[in-house]
């Protein structure tokens, strides 16, 4: 038998419970291979959904384990992973949940999953040393024109912006306040980053969120400041970034700043 003849039907039947087991399987006692093939089917779905459950604990807590595992199993069958790096697979779950018909009553579910994904990414991002505070202070002193300066942020930094109060909902599930007190219909933003070994989710005002996104995109300080147009948010954001060692490089655009 040629090789695809063995593998392709096996692979197709793994993810489709309606299909019979592939042809060409034998059992020592002549029993129906279906019961044995079911072990592989269960293993595949169990392993892949367990990996998703590890990545999205609050999403699972909010909808309950049974609902989460059913949704995750559906996701696994419709959009199986494409690589052994399962975080790449997990990255597609928020969009799947946002469009998952049985979850339409929870329109913020995808956003909550996005926040959890950002946390996991922050925890695994590359290690880069922060620009030491004295160096940063000296650069600020020296700079002829701050508006043209680009800040490089730590690889763990992610700017989270959502139309729903999922930052508060997530925090409530960490024991910070009652879940029932969360008014979900409000937009929220957060700065997600790793400082040392710890991942932080820090709520920030919407203007600081916009500003952070512009800086993360590599826009110069002047552009970002003009667009965000909120001096208080600007100060608050820079304070957070400095305190958590999230500024890793300072690029002066003009030659005069070198």
């Amino acid at each position: 038998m040629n090789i695809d003849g063995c593998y392709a039907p096996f692979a197709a039947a793994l993810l489709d419970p309606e299909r019979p087991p592939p042809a060409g399987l034998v059992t020592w006692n002549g029993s129906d291979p279906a019961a044995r093939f079911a072990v592989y089917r269960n293993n595949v779905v169990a392993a892949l959904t367990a990996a998703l459950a590890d990545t999205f604990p609050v999403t699972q807590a909010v909808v309950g384990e049974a609902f989460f595992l059913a949704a995750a199993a559906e996701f696994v069958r419709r959009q199986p992973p494409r690589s052994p790096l399962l975080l790449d697979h997990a990255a597609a779950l928020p969009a799947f949940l946002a469009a998952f018909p049985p979850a339409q009553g929870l329109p913020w579910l995808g956003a909550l999953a996005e926040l959890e994904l950002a946390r996991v990414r922050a925890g695994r991002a590359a290690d880069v040393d922060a620009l030491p505070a004295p160096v940063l202070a000296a650069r600020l002193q020296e700079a002829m024109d701050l508006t043209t300066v680009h800040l490089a942020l730590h690889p763990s930094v992610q700017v989270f912006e959502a139309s729903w109060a999922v930052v508060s909902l997530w925090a409530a599930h960490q024991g910070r306040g009652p879940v029932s007190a969360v008014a979900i219909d409000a937009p929220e933003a957060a700065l997600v980053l790793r400082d040392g070994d710890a991942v932080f989710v820090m709520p920030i005002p919407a203007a600081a969120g916009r500003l952070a996104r512009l800086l993360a995109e590599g826009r110069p300080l002047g552009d970002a400041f003009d667009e965000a147009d909120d001096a208080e948010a600007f100060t608050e954001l820079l304070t957070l970034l400095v305190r958590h060692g999230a500024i890793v490089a300072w690029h002066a655009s003009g030659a005069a700043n070198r």
Partner: protein
Amino acid sequence: MSDPGRLENARPLAGIGLKQQHVPELLGSDVAIDFVEIHAENYMVEGGPRLRQLEAVRDRFALSVHGVGLSIGGAGPLDRDHLARLAALVRRFEPRWCSEHLAWSGHGGHWFGDLLPLPYDRETLGRVCAHVHEVQEALGRRLLLENPSTYVEFAASTWNEGDFLAEVVRRTGCGLLLDVNNAFVSAVNHGRDPWALVAALPPDAVGELHLAGFAEDRDGAGDRLLVDDHGAPVDEAVWALFERTVAHLGPRPTLLERDHAVPPLTELTREAERARRVLHRVAEAAA
């Protein structure tokens, strides 16, 4: 290909699979463990605490890197990106042993996260050997290939598993990771004598042993169907097979695997201690 592990193989070494929740206790106390094994894919991250923890663990214990993602038995070519990631991990942490599975996990661009069975025929043999060669080239060292737990067999198979593995060793110079639990599970599932597999393997090629627990089910005919779930203590029948295997091969580094319903560290170290006693007994009898 160099094999720094070979001289160590005669010394009784017992290890456990590394679980994140056990790391602080492993580093903070005097745990009687000789080595730890990691699943390579869990450490394919760019940075962060996980890699720092592994560095600390690596300073204290010998390390075995156990891949679950290469799909060596796959029909298609190896995933070069994944192999490069594995090679980078091996360069960085310099484990004493590197192992992977005689299984496939992906097909047609999809990844299944499970170790799937292959037909043992001439065509598969050629492909597995080519893949093992490629892995050993990329890693610059000898790979230990692990025998799988299987639940079905293919009508297309023309070799038994032991002879197939022995032939892969002969053609590629790779070593073997003999999973004693897998040998037992597959033997029960296919109505065979587990010793037939152990006896077919070239003894010098076996560089590591695995022990784990299984779950018990029934097949369509009501016969025992064992599922290798790494979720229970090692079964007494597997301990018996382990003792006979060690008496036959001599002591080999032996690892206790537990991936589900993970108990407190002390329960795993107790099982590792039992394995070490078996290894010692055989080592002393041979001295």
